[in-house]
Structures are given as C-alpha cells and as structure tokens.
C-alpha cells in the first residue's frame, strides 16, 4: 500500500465526515454563500478540533472570497484547501539522522497518548530501512511499562536497555546511548513515562533526561518527538507548548488517527507554536505509521469530494 492510499485509508472516516457534510451543503447546482451557509462550514471545521482561531480564520476567508455568490463545490473546497495548506505549510521534515554515530530520538507525551506503541512503530520503520535500533525503557514509573516495551523489542528485533522500577529515567537514557555507541547501533529511541504537562517536577525531569542524553553523546537527542493523541481537543496546544519548553520537542507524532477524530488540533499547534507533525499513527499494528505530509494530509481530507464530482 503506497503512502497516499494508506493515509487515505486511515483518514477515510475523517474524510467521509468532512466530505459528506460539505456535499450536503451543495445539493444541486450550487448554493448561495450566506450567513447560514458559513455557520454550517464553521460547524464542520469545529468538529475537526482545529480550534477557535483557526476555524474563524478559515470561515472568514470563505466569507471574504465567496460571500453572496452561488458557488460550485470545487470552489469552496479549493478555498478551504488553500487556506489549510497555508496554515499547515512546513518544510519537509523527516527524522534528522546524525551525520555520524547513533541518532538519538527521545519520545515524550501525556499518559495514554500512545508513546510505547508509537515507539514500536518508529522502531519498525527504522528496522525496515535496515537500521539497527536500541530502545531505552525510560518509563520506570507505570506498572509493566518496561515489560510492554521489552515485548515490542523482541518482536521487532531491537535491543533494549532496562532498569529496575524506580531507577531515574535519565540513567536509563544515558545507558541506552552508551550502549548505542558501544555496539555501533544506528538509532536509539528513549521512552519516557507519561506525564501531564502541568506536573512541573515531572516536566523538569524531561529536561534532565535530555541533559543526560547530551552528556552521553554531545549533540543528542537529535529528535524529541511529542506523541499526541488525535482525539485530544484544545488541550493539545497546552501539551505541545509545555513539552516543547521542557524537552525541546522537534516534532509531533499524531497517534490514533484511524478513529473518527480528526486531529485538527495540530493546525492550532502549527499555527501558534510552529511545531511540525512528523508522523501519523493509523492503527494498532507496528506498521501503521506514515510520515506526515501536510499537502497530502489536506488533499486526502478532500480527495473524495473531488473524485465524486469529477
């Protein structure tokens, strides 16, 4: 399955909701764009969780460009798409591999966002690229988190560094990088315990883990990924902002995008913080991870509309 069809399959439900709704608005030849129409568009956009400001900006755009006109579906879709692409525009951002030596990736996020599963997916991705991977079981807090990661490491043929429950996660991180250096492993992925962004002591711990990694290998971590649950609402902005502050996040893994949630909060995040989405999680299997591409993301949302009317 190619990237485009995969992301499309994952977003099918998402797209279906958005597209059906839009199509409903254009039952026949075209519709007059008036206040009532804009309110309907507003509702559709709000349901994507993209947030108040982003939604209002888009609705205003449509209103400005098309108000009072009777339009075809494609026109409105084009306006929405153009505006969304503009909002989500970002440089192509794959994982930045270290020029030499191991690439260190630190993964953080709130409880239950899907960190461990995302790490498994990342490891699987790196493995399929022929890279060797070591996992650092840095979640020494939650019951059985280390076991969960160990099971994944076994399944994916990655090595793993573990420590007894209660060990400081910075120690685990340091040892993982040490092992990566000693065994000449290409990628080291460091897991961290889930934490709410308001727990300042735990957020400070992230800073410490980061420092420990840098101590083991100057210049690392090369990537710090925030795993964000796609069902998250506007709190995602607070998560992104505080995790970025504490851990210096370089990007987002948008997990659980295979449900009906749209993950639109990344639009707000992108707009307010400039933090790009790097990957999207589209299922429970370790292969269900795709690099994020904003243009294709937006196109996939609307492609059904155009296919239906073409």
């Amino acid at each position, binding site marked *: 399955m190619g990237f485009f069809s995969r992301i499309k399959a994952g977003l099918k*439900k998402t797209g279906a909701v958005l597209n059906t709704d839009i199509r409903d608005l254009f039952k026949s030849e075209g519709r007059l764009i008036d206040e009532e129409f804009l309110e309907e568009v507003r*509702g559709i956009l*709000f*349901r*994507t*969780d993209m*947030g*108040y400001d982003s939604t209002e900006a888009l609705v205003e755009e449509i209103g400005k460009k098309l108000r009072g006109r009777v339009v075809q579906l494609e026109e409105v879709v084009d306006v929405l798409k153009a505006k969304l692409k503009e909002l989500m525009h970002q440089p192509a951002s794959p994982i930045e591999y270290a020029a030499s030596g191991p690439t260190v990736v630190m993964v953080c996020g*709130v*409880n*239950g*966002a*899907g960190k461990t599963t995302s790490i498994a997916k990342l490891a699987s991705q790196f493995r399929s690229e022929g890279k060797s991977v070591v996992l650092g079981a840095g979640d020494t*807090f*939650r*019951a*059985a*988190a280390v*076991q*969960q990661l*160990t*099971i*994944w490491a076994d399944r994916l043929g990655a090595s793993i560094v573990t420590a007894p429950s209660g060990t400081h996660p910075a120690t685990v991180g340091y040892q993982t990088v040490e092992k990566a250096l000693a065994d000449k492993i290409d990628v080291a992925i460091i897991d961290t315990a889930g934490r*709410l*962004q*308001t727990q*300042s002591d735990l957020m400070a711990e992230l800073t410490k883990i980061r420092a420990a990694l840098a101590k083991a290998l100057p210049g690392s971590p090369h990537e710090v990924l925030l795993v964000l*649950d796609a*069902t*998250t*609402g*506007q*709190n*995602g902005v*607070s*998560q992104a902002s505080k995790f970025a502050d504490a851990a210096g996040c370089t990007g987002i893994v948008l997990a*659980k995008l*295979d*449900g*009906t*949630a*749209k993950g*639109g*909060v990344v639009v707000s995040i992108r707009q307010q913080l400039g933090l790009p989405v790097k990957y999207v999680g589209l299922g*429970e299997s370790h292969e269900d991870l795709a690099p994020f591409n904003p243009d294709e993301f937006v196109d996939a949302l609307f492609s059904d509309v155009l296919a239906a009317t073409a």
Partner: protein
Amino acid sequence: MFDALQENLGAAFKTLRGQGKLTEGNMRDGLKLVEKALLEADVSYEVVRTFMKRVGEQALGEKVLGSLRPNEQVIGIVYQELVNLMGPVDHSLHLKGKGDVTVLMMCGLQGSGKTTTCGKLGKMLKANGRRPLLVAADLQRPAAIDQLHVLGEQLDIPVFSDRTTQDPVKVTANAVERAKKLEADVVILDTAGRLHIDSELMDQLKRIDQRCHPDQIYLVVDGMTGQDAVNSAKAFNEALELDGVIMTKLDGDARGGAAISVKEVTGVPLKFMGTGEHLENLEPFHPERMAGRILGQGDMMSLVEKAQQEFDQDEAKRLEEQLAKGEFTLDDFLKQMQQIKRLGPMKKVLGMIPGMGSMLGDLDELDAEGDLRRLQGIIHSMTLNERRKPKTIDQSRRRRIAAGAGVEPSAVNDLVKQFDTIAPIMTAMAGKGMGDRMKMMKQVQSEMAGNPAGMLSKKKQSTGKRLSTKDKAQALKERQKRLKQLKKQKKK
C-alpha cells in the same frame, strides 16, 4: 479564563454604562465570548449551539438587560445551565449485598485510563470494606496483564488472568465463576481499549456483556478529549447501554468540556473523575465543580471539602466563634495559613481557588511555601498584643518586627495591609451559608486577580463592590444571630 471571560463580558457591557440600558446587540457580543470559551473548552459544537440558544433566550430577557450587573447575571445563567447539563449525578456503584457478586465492566478507547481506573476503583471498594477482584480482560496490549497484576500487588487485591487464551469473553466468564470461590463480592473487568468504529472489537464487548451480564458498565473517557468525544461515547452507549462515565486525567489543565458532550449524547450520569496518577486520586464527579472548571473558575468546592477533611475541627470551631464575634486577629490568620499548608502543596491548593487556575503558569516560579514561611516569621516576631491589634504597629515597632523576622520593614507593612483586606471578609463570612461564602470568595478573588502572588495589598475598590448600609446591617444581624446560636449551644 473565567477572569478573562468575566472581564471581557464586563468590557462589552461597560461601554453602555451611563448611556442607560444595555442593548441586545451588546448582549450578543457578550454571548459570543461565552460561546468561544465553551468551544475552547472542547464542548461539542452541536451542544454549544443548542446551549447558547437556551442561554441566549434567558440572557436577552428583560430581567438581565435591566439589571445592574448584566455580566454577572449572564455568567450565573451560563454556570447554572452547565450544571443542569451535567447533572443529575449518581455516585453509587449500585453494589449488591456482600454475599452476592457485583460485576463492573470498564470500557473505552485506547489510552483513556481504564487499567489505572480499575485499580483506583478497587482501592476505593476495598477501603469501603468490599472484596474486589480485578480481571485482566485486556489481551490486546502487550503487558496489560502484568500491569494489572502489579496494581493488584500494590493494593493487595486479587487479580484474575488467563494467559493461555486469546478470548476475553472466556476470561471474563471464568473470572465471574472464580469470584465466588475467592469470596470476592465485586468483580472489575478491565477490557482492552478499542476504537468505537472497530466493529469486530465492539462485537466482542457485546459478547462479554451477554455472557457475563455486568451489573454496571462504565465508559472511561480521557478528560482531554476534543470534539470526537461525542462520536465515541455514542457508539459505546449504543453497543453496551452504559450505566455511567468516568472522566480521567482531570488533574492537568484540560478544561474537560468533553464531560458535557458525553453526558449530552449518552444521558448517563458522570460518576467519578480521575485527578492524578496515584491510586487514591479518584473523586466523585460534581457538576458544579466541573462547570466552574469549564469556565475556568477553579474548584472551590473541592477545596472546601478537602479543607473540611484536613482542618482541625476544634480549631475551626473556635475560629468560627471568634469570627462570629467580629474578631479576627493576626494569630488567627497565622493559624489559618498553617492549616492551609496542611492541605498539601501550596500550588495544588491555590489551583483550586477561583481565579488562580489561569495563573498557575505564573505560579511555577512562585515560591508559595517560602512566602508562607516569611509571613509566619513576621507574625511570630510580633507581640501578642500586636497580633491582636495590628493597628498599634507603628514605625519603630515595624522596624523591630522586620529585624526579628529578617525581612524589609515594607514586608511587615504588606502583611498588615493584607490582613486588613482579609479580616473584614473573614468576619463577614462567618455564619453565612455556602452560597454566600462562594459569593464572598468571588469578591476576594476579584481583589486578588491583579495580584497573583497573593500579596494582596488593599486596593481602592470601585464603589460597586462596597457593602451598602443595608448589606452591612444584614451582615451585623446575621452575626448577632449566629452569636446567639453559639451561646445557646454552649449552654447545652
């Protein structure tokens, strides 16, 4: 947020003050702000629309438009409607007698916090003299069984699991059988997280339901969920006929608007909320608190409840009597602060105070405990007489106290000023009902708003906030009434 909302509403209405009446157009601007607040709190768009229609009708009524403080009235209406939306509550787990086995089933999306909630419920049940049995029916996620076993060990609660099968229906059925042998009276089923659109896994839930006939089925919802809460809650309710909802992860800064959405689409009561990672952090759900939280109003009720648990009851009673007599000294102030300190980390306590929620960001740098220690030092450096009558503190006394406490003389001044602000409020508060106290807290809050560090110097107030002669007379009357009651009690 509540402050911002209140402020914005105030600004929207203020422009019209002096010009006579408020217009409908102005009110609509104000309501738009309410709508924004709700949408930013992740309340479902549909719910917000119908909600705003209802609030709009009331707010545009003549009573509000003609009133002196329309912004407060509007907030009041919004708050009340929110409470109505999320109520009524039902905190009972509907347990059968101890000789019988009650089966509770947890379900929800991945990562919503089911397993942790199972542990918390188990702990709560055990504390209430029940014999719970945790059942590991999550055969999907690697190590989920281990996680439950670790929780069981921590809590000293038996855990049933079967690693030989991949069929959760079988596991749960066996578990219910086993419960009788283990003499457990509550079985808690921890099912795997699943997407509501995964028909295969949803069917599996239905099969567990048909096979085990759980007495109560609870949906566990992540308090940070956005607009999608409506879709998932609806699907789970259609598949299983839920009996209640448990919201989790509400100890963060999520405003939890999903609570409203879920209640609206399922109609089932919100039972509990998870407020921390530790196993005792499970609290009954209160619509009033949630309404305040969604509006960013803080969790005054939780604080009051916690205070009642932690405060020294005798001391509190003595203080109450003092207050009723209209006496509130620096000594009392100190004792109160010490009691507040007992509530836990200052930051958590402050976060529960209305108006403080939005300022918690600033509080990160705030050394609340240090401030408290300094204030204590100052008060300890005073003579008993000075503590009773701070007005006697003149320049030379101030210098002496400051030297004794190792602070600048201005700090002593600040404290006395602070005390001046609080004392009359504390006295007025004594003998009032909860509602009045809340109102008074709001006043304190508005006074504190410009002064987040809590160093509330007495500010010049607008005349609107002052007690009228009538109010003063009323307060005096109530104080005397209270005093009489206290005397009566003493005689008995």
